[in-house]
């Protein structure tokens, strides 16, 4: 399953918005097969931040572990966010 983050907006900033995004998307996660990967696509996102990422990506990483795969991006706000989330959570995101 591919989650296109641009469908949540081009500016993914606050904790509240991150929480709401995950809650809204959660029913779709039921369709994921036991061995299927969840691929996160950042294309089209302009600004990404640790607050939003911590509410959306951190729970998915906890639930799906290595099955959560992030698509490569050269967006500097995504790169900087992943760096701080990995340091805070002491976990590593798997990247394509």
């Amino acid at each position, binding site marked *: 399953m591919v989650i296109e983050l641009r469908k949540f907006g*081009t*500016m993914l*900033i*606050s*904790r*509240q*918005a991150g929480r709401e995004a995950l809650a809204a998307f959660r029913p779709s996660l039921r369709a994921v097969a036991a061995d299927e990967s969840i691929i996160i696509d950042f294309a089209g996102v*302009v*600004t*990404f*931040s*640790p*607050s939003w990422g*911590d509410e959306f990506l951190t729970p998915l990483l906890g639930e799906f572990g290595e099955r959560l795969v992030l698509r490569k991006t050269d*967006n*500097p*706000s995504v790169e*900087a*966010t992943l*760096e*701080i*989330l990995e*340091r*805070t959570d002491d976990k590593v995101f798997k990247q394509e």
Partner: protein
Amino acid sequence: MENDLLTISEAAEFIGVSIDTLRRWDKSGKLLAIRKEGGKHRYYARRDLELVGSDIFKTASEWAFSGQDIPEEFYCTNSAIFQQRLSGLQKALIRSGSEEEPLSLIVAVAGEIGNNSYDHNLGNWPDVSGTFFGYGVKEGEVVLADRGLGILHTLKKVKPDLVNHQEALRVAFTEIISGRAPEARGNGLKFVRSVVGKHQIGLFFQSGDAELRMYGKSLDLRITRGPNMIRGCLARITF
């Protein structure tokens, strides 16, 4: 506490103009240098440098200090209004098309600082709720302020041993508090430091009487005790 006066080359780096520009401003009176006991060398006070040419920062500083009315254009009564105006900043930066630093980082840094104000003060604002948010894309600045509880008060909930605002600012910008109990928050200002320190972005951040400055491509935090005590936080991002 470090010396409050900067040499002309330090001052030029601090506000991102050339030494010649500072000499010109000194002659024209736009920004007068300080000379020690009639000497020839020019020195500058940090606060004078921060206030030069920034009406937005002056307005925010006065509000953070006194809590008097602020112009509606800068006042975000709630988080939804802040998000909307932050989106305006993102659009304005895209339109300008000439930013030296990636616009996404400037918006992300402003977003983390602004959202911190709402996340940590919701339901607990001591007097005025909401935040001050202003920016000038041409001037290369974003200014945020709140009259919330401030960093020391907020951090004391998880680190009761903190004794002053300077120490609280250092912890907020450097320490990842393990478990982040009792609330899932607390990495925003570490992110701000990491981004500002690696790019040509400057930062002034005040909470209580502690003033933090970052400039040049450096992760160094210059934290001093300033002359004014404010409630909440005041920040200026320059780029």
